[in-house]
């Protein structure tokens, strides 16, 4: 394993990175799996106590090379850089330490000569309003990737409605975490398509501002910081809150409500009881051209039950790299418009990056989804792991 890592990196030394992806592991299980790959099959896995002692000391750094290929033949080379934020330090108490880690990861991307850097979900939340805190950039641009995340959430909602025979235009949409970059982007895209919009977030002033924007387009909008007063009336719920762990309880919900958990980390608590709800994980895309990791982190960094599935935020950087558009497509908060989403969807689709098959912790939610060979076993293991580690634990 060691020699293969060295030889891969040896080859990589002479090549420029088109893109870099910055992320971290969401659970100790995921972190253990990453280190297990690095240790190689001939060495035992790190015991949990050793892992928890060692990981917080690892400085941000590249973990592997990522090559991506477009359906039209374009290729882009990149790096996955882990900030090594310990999974139990995602809370606000560690915000300065975590920003420093993301800055360190950004410095690695700049040093590697990456032309565009996608900030994975939690990393972009940390940096969202603090782009000026990133290191001096030279020829490197940063994108939160939130535009493509919004695109895939919206596509997922439409697809789920079609699968369930729902009429989107007759639906009440509840957005949890509505004033965040992803939440507000979803609101702008979906509000014109639904009957009524309910916006929930912690900051009432931001809620009012967003509601005013939407109402200007003739949309029926309600706002509340108290989620419990809303959820029983919604037909569709998008959870896009910034939570340190899956802890959201929707409370009373309508039977057969469609719920899109688009948070990273996931929003919905594993203990949430939602009988009849149609839950799916949103914001995920699939690369149909090709995706390779070196060393081989398939299924480790992208822990999804389908191949080549990656979070939209990271796919945005890859798509822009394949397109040769090295620009900060998504930055700041509240700038995602339906027009920008459409533009990003077009870029992604041109290179074979589409909405991923819909699934949740129990497996695929699409009726009649055919699975590749060995996928049933993988799904079974995946569902078991998802439940035992309190939700999802994937990164890419």
């Amino acid at each position: 394993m060691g020699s293969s890592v060295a030889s891969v990196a040896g080859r990589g030394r002479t090549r420029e990175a088109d893109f870099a992806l910055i992320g971290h592991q969401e659970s100790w299980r995921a972190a253990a799996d990453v280190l297990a790959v690095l240790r190689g099959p001939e060495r035992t896995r790190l015991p949990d106590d050793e892992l928890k002692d060692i990981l917080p000391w690892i400085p941000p750094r590249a973990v592997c090379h990522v090559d991506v290929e477009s359906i039209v033949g374009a290729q882009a080379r990149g790096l996955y850089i882990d900030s090594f934020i310990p999974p139990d330090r995602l809370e606000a108490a560690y915000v300065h330490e975590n920003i420093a880690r993301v800055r360190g990861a950004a410095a690695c991307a700049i040093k590697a000569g990456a032309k565009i850097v996608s900030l994975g979900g939690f990393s972009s939340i940390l940096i969202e309003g603090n782009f000026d805190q990133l290191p001096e950039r030279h020829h490197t641009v940063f994108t939160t990737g939130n535009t493509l995340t919004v695109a895939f959430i919206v596509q997922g909602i439409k697809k789920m409605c079609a699968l369930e025979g729902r009429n989107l235009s007759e639906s009440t949409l509840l957005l949890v975490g509505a004033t965040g970059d992803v939440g507000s982007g979803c609101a702008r895209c979906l509000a014109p398509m639904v009957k009524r919009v309910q916006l929930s977030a912690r900051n009432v002033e931001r809620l009012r501002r967003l509601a005013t924007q939407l109402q200007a387009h003739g949309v029926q909008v309600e706002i509340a910081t108290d989620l419990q007063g809303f959820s029983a009336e919604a037909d569709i719920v998008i959870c896009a809150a910034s939570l340190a762990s899956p802890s959201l309880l929707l409370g009373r919900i309508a039977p057969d409500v469609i719920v899109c958990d688009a948070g990273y980390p996931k929003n919905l608590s594993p203990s949430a009881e939602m009988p009849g709800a149609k839950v799916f994980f949103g914001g995920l895309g699939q690369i149909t051209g090709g995706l390779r990791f070196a060393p081989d982190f398939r299924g480790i960094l992208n822990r999804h039950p389908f191949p080549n599935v990656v979070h939209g935020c990271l796919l945005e950087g890859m798509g822009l790299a394949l397109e040769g558009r090295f620009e900060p497509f998504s930055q700041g908060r509240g700038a995602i418009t339906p027009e920008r989403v459409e533009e990003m969807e077009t870029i992604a689709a041109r290179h074979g990056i589409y909405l991923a098959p819909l699934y949740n912790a129990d497996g695929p939610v699409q009726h009649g989804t055919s699975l590749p060979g060995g996928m049933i076993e993988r799904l079974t293991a995946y569902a078991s792991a998802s439940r035992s580690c309190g939700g999802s634990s994937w990164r890419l």
Partner: protein
Amino acid sequence: MEPLTSVNDSPMECTSLSASAPIWQDILAQAMTGELLAAMNYISLSEICDDPAEVADALEHAEGERGHAAAFAAEGRKIGVDVTNNVDAKHWKRLRDAFLRCITERDFIGCLIVQEIMLESFAVASYSRVGKVAPASLGKTFARIAAEEEEHVDHAMSILRAERALDAQRFDDKVHRLHLDVMTTLAQMLAKECKDGHCEVCHATCVKPSLFEVSLSAAELRGASLQQYLKTLDKLGIPGEVTLAWVAQLPV
């Protein structure tokens, strides 16, 4: 046992440390052993240097390391303990043997990698941590020596970076080879528990389980040391994904 140069001892200043004195005694013994080993390494290095300036440099470093060892001995006396050393203790001997193999091969760069990149990373990181928690002059001495060791590393870094610029792959292969030898031993020394018997430096039982009594832990010292090592390798320009795998593969 290596003899020590004399130092200007001050009267005992820390009688309040009596309860934790045996712990500091072992910490000082490990530090002193490391410094004496470093002094021996620099003297050996001076014997393979061709350039008189490099010879003088190596001997000056050796003298500096002996001064550090003496300072640690003096700190022991201040708290009423006799700080012993054992450069023939099993782990330290393996580290010395690894260095001597570079000497045998007249591999000046290899010597610098072992001493300045690997052993000094360990020294700088662990002394810095100890310096933060050790009381009075004991803490100041550890912090001062950590800073001085860091200067050594900076000095070697320019030589090593220039060497890597000539042939990065060859240089990285050499670092990896030495890493497997030296860092494996250091990782065993830094393990949370000494699984293969007494280290032959601690004066009684292993000090590691007692470190919490002085606001330290073996895990913290290991973590800080490996972090320092990774950052030093970063400064050399070795790809982070490569060094991460190296470190991940070390024994725990």
